[in-house]
């Protein structure tokens, strides 16, 4: 027999990360760097577990990068009922590894330019 469905609606806190989400709308990728020890965090963190400081600054990540790996998502999960998309990991000039969606024909080692579609980081194959 059918069980009672469970609907979960979530209210997700992004307090302290506004710069990241505003950046996405402007086509830019921002992240945090600890002012005390210099560690760069991506995904950004409000706190530095390395030196216990919470004195962080926002930095804009450089836009050139290389594809480290990727996968073409054919069978989609709930919430992504749409055309196929390519999930990639790109290493940028700051030596930061970022997840993104890749546009163009992907290949490991190919150069990409990092931008956004307003909601996520996009790597456009050069």
């Amino acid at each position, binding site marked *: 027999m059918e*069980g*009672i469905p469970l609907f979960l609606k979530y209210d*997700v806190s*992004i307090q302290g990360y506004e710069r990241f989400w505003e950046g996405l709308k402007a086509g830019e990728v921002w992240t945090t760097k600890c002012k005390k020890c210099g560690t760069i965090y*991506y*995904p950004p963190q409000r706190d530095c577990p390395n030196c216990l400081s919470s004195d962080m600054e926002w930095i804009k990540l450089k836009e050139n990068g290389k594809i*480290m*790996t*990727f*996968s*073409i*998502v*054919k*069978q*989609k*999960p*709930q*919430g*992504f*009922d749409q055309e196929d*998309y390519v*999930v990639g*990991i790109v290493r940028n000039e700051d030596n930061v*590894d*970022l*997840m*993104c*969606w890749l546009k163009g024909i992907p290949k*490991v*080692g190919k150069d990409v330019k990092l931008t956004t579609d307003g*909601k*996520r*980081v996009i790597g456009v194959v050069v």
Partner: protein
Amino acid sequence: MNKRVAVIGIGSSKFGRRNDVGIRELTWEAVREALIDAGLTQKDIQLNVIGSTAYRGTEIYPAPPASEYSGLVGKSPIRVEAACATGSAAAFTAINAVASGMADIVLAIGFDKMTEVDTSASLAIGGRGGNYLWEFHMYGTTFPTYYALYATRHMAVYGTTEEDMALASVKAHKYASLNEKAHLRNKVTVEEVLKSRPISWPIKLLDSSPISDGSSAAIFASEDAVRKLHAEPVWVKGIGYGSDTSSIASRGEWTGLKAAKDAAAMAYSSSHVSPTDVEYATVHDCFTIAEIMAYEDLGFAEKGKGAKLLRDGQTEKDGKVAVNLFGGLKAKGHPLGATGLAMIYEVVKQLREEAGPVQHSFKNYIGLTHNVGGTGHYAYVTVLGR
């Protein structure tokens, strides 16, 4: 470990799409078999540890109802969770309860009923097996996607091919066809694997473990209890654990699992066993690339040569190190909470020479389980011996 710990009883349900049972009846199948195997009753059990991820079932707090049905009320339970390594986390907790001297006889049970929800819900839950906001929310990653990122990188760096990965699936299905408790008992060919539907390229349907229901159990005992019960023990010789970042992009390398390498190093050093001593292993082949990486992470093959070990047939029955002769996660099935304890069940069966048509021939009776949680977020390696 302070005190020696033995496995003295094991049980496992049939894995598969088990519409014929609820979570309670499914759990009982493994518990009943383990109690009979050990010659014990529930009265002898001092503590009950339960491993279940439970996110895909109606019973999201499943430990009390499962314990009650199995006659274990009053024996706790402690419920633990480590994604796909949940069963090993339960074993780890039970082993440590005995090793510390806190209890003499501890039952660990692992189970999950994953087929109560549909595949798109299951993919959305698995896709959260990482870091929700920074992965699934923005990029719609599914669980196969994470392993596919490893597969693509392994192919680019070491020349591993989709055909190589298909061989792991062919091997798994061949052995599962001989296992009455396996989920998928059909044999497959390399061509069928290559032509199967892509799920998250390069991972295809036949590279993937099925979504399964199942339960497994093991009873752990102290040396004193083994002596008193005149039990035939399989000893826990050593155990290791490891972990890695929640976001897959932060790991810096995608050709092997650091968590598994760390767990293996710790298990080898605590058991004084080296990779070449291991005669039988269960490895976490949730996807075919995972089996190839496991060979390398466990030191059975040099880095980048995992596919060659598979091609050379060295991981078949009576090979250098036999791997997953019960069909692996790939074909036996992968009910998350049950898997780690099903691995212990399998290695104990092999070490006791009770494995029937898939019995491997041993010289020194050394076996190992390799259980990975998430996409390498957790790993447990356990060395067992007679």
